[in-house]
């Protein structure tokens, strides 16, 4: 399912004249089954943009094409359920959306809303919980008895249980420990390999470098750059103006380059960095 934004602008309805546009003439395409990252400073409009993709917000002008569905400013609020089933959204700190008595019921909530029978919902709850790496024995526990990390996983399972084709992630690893971060991100990479489109909103450039195939850069409600992570981190203009910061490997390589090392392209992952260093050491003897 391809997602295409055509000249989308959004202005928040507000009495306060200081609040400007949420989105300013953004056009972009998210290819089917891709792993796309959306980066930018706080308040650059990333979250506003992703809320358009499952019609929580509607564009003030422009259109959004999601598969064969088109959304513009006049789109009716009814009949959006099929769309929202196809596009799952994991919000920031999703653990705050848990509410049912048991983990099982909470995960079943999504599928049931989208019209699954109780049996089907129970089945998908079990599968989703397994997917996020939590044992089945937790199904009958209260979600409020779990640890923060487990709650996060249950909340993510609640989104995955509806079997969405596209998954939007708004900083899914914020506040997680390093191990938790890698586990969660690997899960999404796996889902991506299984044919799901992943849209990742993040501040963490290492996540972008390690996982994303394509990256869009937002600044002041505008789209200011796009390309593969490699192109983005090698884009002098974006990096020097401070819009994009570098992942750890790249900033380390930059420091090495001040000594005698030479990089035609900045390495963005640890593997790339170590390979490049190894090559140069071998060549120079």
């Amino acid at each position: 399912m391809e997602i295409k934004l055509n000249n989308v602008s959004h202005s928040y309805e507000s009495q306060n004249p200081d609040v400007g546009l949420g989105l300013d003439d953004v056009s972009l395409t998210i290819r089917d089954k891709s792993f796309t990252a959306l980066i930018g400073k706080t308040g650059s409009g990333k979250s506003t943009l992703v809320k358009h993709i499952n019609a929580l917000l509607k564009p003030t002008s422009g259109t959004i094409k999601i598969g064969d569905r088109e959304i513009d400013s006049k789109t009716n609020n009814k009949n959006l359920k099929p769309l929202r089933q196809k596009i799952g959204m994991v919000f920031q700190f999703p653990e705050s959306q848990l509410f049912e008595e048991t983990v099982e019921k909470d995960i079943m909530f999504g599928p049931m809303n989208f019209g699954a029978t109780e049996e089907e919902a129970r089945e998908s709850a079990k599968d989703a919980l397994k997917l996020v790496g939590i044992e089945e024995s937790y199904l009958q526990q209260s979600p409020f008895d779990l640890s923060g990390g487990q709650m996060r996983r249950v909340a993510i399972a609640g989104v995955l249980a509806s079997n969405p084709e596209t998954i939007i992630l708004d900083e899914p690893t914020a506040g997680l420990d390093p191990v938790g971060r890698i586990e969660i991100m690997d899960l999404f990479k796996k889902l991506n390999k299984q044919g799901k489109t992943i849209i990742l909103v993040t501040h963490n450039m290492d996540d972008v470098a390690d996982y994303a195939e394509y990256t869009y850069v937002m600044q002041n409600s505008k789209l200011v750059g796009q390309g593969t992570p490699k192109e983005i981190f090698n884009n002098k203009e974006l990096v020097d103006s401070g819009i994009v910061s570098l992942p750890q490997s790249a900033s380390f390589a930059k420091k090495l380059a001040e000594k005698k090392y030479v990089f035609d392209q900045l390495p963005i992952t640890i593997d790339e960095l170590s390979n490049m260093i190894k090559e140069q050491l071998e060549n120079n003897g």
Partner: protein
Amino acid sequence: MMDKLIFGRYLPGDSIIYRLDPRGKFLITFYFIGIVFLANNVASYALLLAFVLFSVYLSEINIGFFIKGLRPMLFLIVFTVLLQMFFTPSTDPLWKFGVLQLSTDGMVIAGYILLRFVVIIFISTLLTLTTTPIEISDSIESILKPLRYVKFPVTQVALSLSIALRFVPLLIDETVKIMDAQRARGVDFGEGGLLKRIKSFVPILIPLFVSSFSIAYDLAIAMESRGYKDGEGRTKYRQLHWKKIDNYTVLVIALLTVCLLLVRSY
């Protein structure tokens, strides 16, 4: 939804009204609402309206804000005014139909009611637009101070009030966020019958309560670790200053009262 509510919001600015002592503003607003009921004829209402419009002018805030502030109350205003208009008994009605009757007296009284609404809403909107919530809670604390002598826990009440005010916008944000999250999971708010609508709020209310509990817990721990014991014997960082200009406002409002009493007797 929340954007449309003007009353109770603060609008950053800097004019004479902003610089007045919040305690004075707070008391004067309440006093003014009290004396609105003294007005009983055209001249007295004109005086009140002039006073309010002058205050609005001094605040340097666009009058459009105040007019928008009327909107949420529109139904109540129209309802009351119409009721007054058609149910005021009169010996000489212009038009009569069963118990309904339209008379000059009725229309005049309805007009007064309308003006009363406008004046009260304008002045209270002016208070909240020009005074930060924290200033309001400081003034309440300072005004309640005498109640300490009857063992009323003034500092505790003031603390709860300022914490509550601080967390209102946070909880509104949280509510919007949770609503969005549940909508993404397929909840329809405001659809279906009454029972279904009420039920659809459970997935918002429970997370909201849960997060309030955890906020309260974290806040209490943070306060204790920063050395908070109880309200007694604390010094204050924000000091309120009663200035010369505040004396003038008291003078003006006293003058207004006197004029009102004079005009009223005619």
